């Protein structure tokens, strides 16, 4: 159940970050930072038991949401990338503990993995 909530949080956070960055064209930094700040303030309030963990997961997905529109063409693709970020966040929770940038590295791996997945299975190079 905990994992499902984490995955749902990452999908919402990643898509919101992408929406602000690429669709509303406000820039990737504000897109990610606003999601990180709001999740850091709100999630511990609404989920006292696991709010900190959810805020961290949301921050992680928001970094993935900084991807350019050339690499993630639409919100649906971003939803898949965010889901992959969530899965990787859960799977790699014991790595690089305490090192700043760990969440961004997870996001980058998820973004690259999605591009690799597209290359292998979808077989299209949209560029």
């Amino acid at each position, binding site marked *: 159940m905990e994992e499902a909530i984490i995955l749902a949080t990452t999908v919402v956070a990643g898509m919101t970050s992408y929406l602000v960055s690429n669709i509303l064209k406000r*820039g*990737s*930094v*504000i897109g*990610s*930072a*606003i*999601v*990180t*700040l709001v*999740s*850091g*303030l709100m999630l511990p309030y609404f989920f006292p038991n696991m709010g*900190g963990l959810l*805020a*961290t997961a*949301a*921050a992680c997905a928001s*970094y*993935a*949401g*900084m*991807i*350019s529109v*050339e*690499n*993630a063409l639409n919100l649906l693709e971003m939803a898949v*990338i965010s889901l*992959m970020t969530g*899965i*990787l966040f*859960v*799977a*790699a929770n*014991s*790595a*690089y*503990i*305490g*090192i*700043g*940038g*760990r*969440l*961004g*590295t*997870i*996001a*980058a*791996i*998820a*973004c*690259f*993995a*999605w*591009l*690799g*997945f597209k*290359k*292998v299975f979808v077989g299209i190079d949209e560029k």
Partner: protein
Amino acid sequence: MILGSDKMRRSLFSKKSARILGLMAFIATGGGLIISTAINEENFYKTEILVIFGCFFAVSLVDHYRRLIERNNSKKINRRFLYILLCSFIGATLTWFINHQMGYGAVIANGLVGVMAATFLPNDLAGITYTSSLIGMSSLEVIPSMGVAALVSLVVALIFVNTAEIYEGIGGKAGTTAALAVIITRTIIKIFS
């Protein structure tokens, strides 16, 4: 004419070398995370997931490498190094201060610094400020003082200036740059202490 051609060849070589070096550093940071987790993880399913992600990561990196080598007319990055250095310093130390001294936590500190940077700074400087802000999210065991945070911010600025075009358009490039800088600085500190 020949001298000019030699100079151009050398310049292209150094640019190519810098790109390859930057990409290798990126692979080491991302691959290191996947491999270390896969080795230490006792849960078989988690290891399996990491291996699958690792395979797609590798496929994508090969493709990214090809594009990177082919790319000749790369976008010029505004190299206002002094400003970059200053923003990097402020981003890292301010986040560290809000996180550890004020006790607001890493996520709020990073978000706050990011929003301020995006509001008051131009895009390129907001980017480096947000990147270095990720350093300040480190735990006290990794970055015990503001002085160390300042040192890591210098390393981040150097990496950022040289590798910004390599990671262009990929979500998480800021985090990977920050993680790389933290690992490099920790290694340097360990060697000299």
